[in-house]
């Protein structure tokens, strides 16, 4: 009797306090969970180096060698972006004299199959002012 007077509706209060405790605990756990989840989010904001994707195939480009730069500079006399066809292999059957020029009054200086000797008078004086040609030997 005495207990009933001191603690009226005892079971109702127990249930109420238990519910309140559970609610507080759940809230506390939820807040803690949110705080832990926020930390990685901040880390992703920090700028990071991005590694290039690793590829399994490589591309190589063949670049024509360029001359080493001389001390006093280099003159580009002619630049052809598109490589011309390679010269023909010279053999006995190739008329080198024709291939190496000879026009303009000049004479190919590299023709191994040159014309036979001519008398001096046959080479006319008017052509004497023409530039000499040099095309390698």
């Amino acid at each position, binding site marked *: 009797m005495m207990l009933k007077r001191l603690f009226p509706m005892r079971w109702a209060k127990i249930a109420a306090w238990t519910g309140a405790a559970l609610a507080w605990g759940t809230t506390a756990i939820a807040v803690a969970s949110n705080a832990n989840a926020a930390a990685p989010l901040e880390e992703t904001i920090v700028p990071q180096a991005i590694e290039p994707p690793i590829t399994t195939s490589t591309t190589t480009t063949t670049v*024509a*060698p*360029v*001359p*080493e*730069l*001389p*001390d*006093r*500079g*280099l*003159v*580009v*006399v*002619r*630049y*052809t972006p*598109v*490589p*011309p*066809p*390679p*010269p023909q*292999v*010279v*053999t*006995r059957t190739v008329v*080198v*004299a024709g*291939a*190496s*020029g000879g026009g303009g009054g*000049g*004479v*190919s*200086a*590299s023709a*191994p*199959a*040159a*014309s*036979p*000797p*001519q*008398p*001096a*008078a*046959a*080479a*006319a*004086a008017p*052509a*004497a002012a023409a*530039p*000499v*040609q*040099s*095309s*390698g*030997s």
Partner: protein
Amino acid sequence: MKRAVFSAMGTSIDVRAATDGGIDSTRRIFETVEEACSRFRPESELSRTNDDADRIVTVSPLMACALRAAEHARTITGGLVDAGLGGAVRAWGYDRSFESLEDGLGCETSDQTAAPEWSIDGTTLVRSPGVNIDLGGVAKGWTCDLAVERGHATIVSAGGDVRSASNDARVEIVDPWGDVAALIRLGVGALATSSIARRRWRYGSGEANHLIDPRTMRPSDGPVLQATAITATAVEAEAAAKAIVLLGVGGLAWADRQPWIRAALAVWRSGCVYGTTGLEMAA
């Protein structure tokens, strides 16, 4: 000014002289030097010297002068241009005049694997066993020099080697494709062009040319197809042009550092043409 064109030393000789007598004298000089210095003539002094097994040989004064010119070419190019490489040139197939050369000759290896040792003292030639002398390029340039220095000719061009005593001398540089790559104001001096695009032949598995690199004992196969050098004498120009081809990428830079080379020009395999700043282009 008189002009004549004739054949000698397996190439075409273009002579400009004041008189017909000068042209005739120039022709005789070429004939005389060729008789002595051709390695394609079995009866020539050079052929007999090469066939001689003796280590020490006495040569004629003319041959001695030609050998001294070759020794000078070797010295100024640091051994790159060496007349003692005749054995390697022959081994690679260039054992006859180019007119009679055919594809399929030669082999991929040469018995000559070390730098040849030879020297000329007076008229005494001293060489190590097996050294075969090839005066081809040097003899052409040297003969041009002789004809002009003796006053017989004003301008002489022989197989790409030009020696001039005329202030007005201009030279067209013809590239391996037959186009004029540059028109150069030469003036008094000498110019020579060396090319590995000409005088080439095929052997078993590849292609060879007349320019043997003493560092590899193989024909040159660098990026420079053709080089031209301007110097005081044709012997020096011939040596410089060959050295530039052999040095490849660094050839023009090397030429630029040599005080005896006025200017140089190189034709790349790609068709590009580069020169040193000393080049004087004619209009």
